[in-house]
């Protein structure tokens, strides 16, 4: 029970340990990805709006 297979087996508790880490990664990663996409979109919208206004002057 050494190396990678030992790590994956988690002493027989693989089906509890890995999902716990997976859920944490999925949820927090999802929140982070959403925050990043929203930030990019907010920058882009602000940028276009300012350019649009500048071009009308």
């Amino acid at each position, binding site marked *: 029970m050494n190396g990678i297979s030992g*790590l994956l087996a*988690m*002493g*027989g*508790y693989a089906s*509890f*340990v890995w*999902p*716990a*880490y997976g*859920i*944490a990664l999925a*949820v*927090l990663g*999802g*929140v*982070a990805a959403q*925050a*990043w996409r*929203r*930030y990019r*979109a*907010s*920058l*882009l*919208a*602000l940028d*276009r*709006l*300012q350019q*649009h*206004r500048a071009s*009308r002057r």
Partner: protein
Amino acid sequence: MINWLANPARFMRLSAKTLPWCGWAAVTFLVVGLYWSLVVAPPDYQQGDTVRIMYVHVPAAWWALGVYLFVALASAVALVWRHPLAQVAAREAAPIGAAFTFVCLASGSLWGRPMWGTWWVWDARLTSMLILFFLYLGDIALANAFEDPSRGGRAGSVLALVGVVNLPIIKFSVDWWNTLHQPASVMRLGGSTIAFSMLAPLLVMATGFGLLFVALLMLRMRSALNERRAMALRLNAGGPQALRSEREQPVPARTAPQS
């Protein structure tokens, strides 16, 4: 301090500098923490490898409570002083706290099944944590239920303050009632009772979670302030005429969720 921070332009300058550092520090701590907790840390002599669930469960629980306290304090500042940034901070922190609470509940359930023989029990600790999750969801829903975001924000702030009563109930639930959940072993009077080989990765993960919260909060607050500025630009453009010309030459007016 409060007044100094009240200036959104100052926040934008400050966060532009600190956000990248905070984000990369969070990634570093989490990568090191994951390796430490999954590979280096020893299995428990009673719980075997399931003890590794602790390294996501406990930091998520700490920050679920910590973020709620932050939301409540920011809400209080927003209600009392009409602090323009505090309202934004409270509203943008709440979904992150809800995510931590969900991770805590889900990982706890996955820990409970092999160790207690059940996914869930309706005892004090678990139930009060579930109530915290609902408080977060209620706060988010209430803040978004009004057409005027500032009215929604005030309603959400009041709910956040009322919900603070739940925090000591969660913390002391393991002492006040009989529960399957173990009592505190890190933050307790008389010192911690956890072995260093397990405490160290736990603290690294907790630091990583905390840095992640600060980085995500800054990112979300920056987004909200950008969106607010875009809205002001659109409204200030000069009444119906401007609105018409924008319609002819469409600007991607992303109506972002005010969460």
